[in-house]
């Protein structure tokens, strides 16, 4: 995997980690405004970055979540355990 792709993937992992952590926190603290704002902020940034990543390197998820260029890109990309 080229260094630029790895760098971008790492940024996605970092932002999604923020979203995962805040999801669990908000599950038990649904009335707190500040973590909710942080969650929405991270979600916005994450979606933007994913669109950018997927246009360059192919879909991160299929099942209708992201479109694919021709030919079907999903089976061509490396799997996480092969990186």
């Amino acid at each position, binding site marked *: 995997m080229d260094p630029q792709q790895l760098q971008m*993937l790492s940024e996605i*992992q970092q932002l999604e*980690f923020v979203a995962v952590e805040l999801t*669990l926190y908000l*599950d*038990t603290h649904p009335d707190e405004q500040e973590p909710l704002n942080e969650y929405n902020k991270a979600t916005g940034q994450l979606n933007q970055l994913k669109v950018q990543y997927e246009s360059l390197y192919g*879909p*991160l998820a299929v099942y209708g*979540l992201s479109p694919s260029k021709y030919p079907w890109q999903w089976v061509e990309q490396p799997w996480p*355990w092969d990186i």
Partner: protein
Amino acid sequence: MWIYERKLEYPICVTQPDVRMARYLMAQYGGPDSELSAGVRYLTQRYTMPTNKTKGLLNDIGTEELAHWEMIGTMIYKLLKGVPVEQLEQANLGSHFTEHDHAVYPADANGVPWTAAYVQATGDPVTDLHEDMAAEQKARTTYEHLIRLSVDPGIKDALRFLREREVVHFQRFGEALNEVQEELTRKKVF
């Protein structure tokens, strides 16, 4: 419905194969307090949780556990990749090779296969949440043992991340337990 995302929750960097460590890591892939047990346990218990918060929390932690299971599987796969059978035998993985070759199989560090008996679901939310909190502590302890046994900085780093997640899950389960107990007390008619 689950959607697979083509990435790990946290990156795994392995510099070279290490059969010994691969074997120890199987504790968290197919052992009693493995990520697999945790995922199946929480996703099973969620149906009979009494409040929206607890259903949500078990659903979301259960889902995160599956991502951790993938991280452990990735570590084992990378640590065993290309290792000749003689080296597997030296690390007591000759019997693993007999049945599974280099496959990543859900068994514990002693080769005992994963079983649903590791999953507790009593239908009592107080009991189940106590079980879950204990499971997180047991997994934390196992990660501390694994960190002490590991030499590869990439493996150590990923294990530290996973250990920290056990601490956070324990905290969230504790909050969920408090909520359930308050709820049960409120419902009582004196």
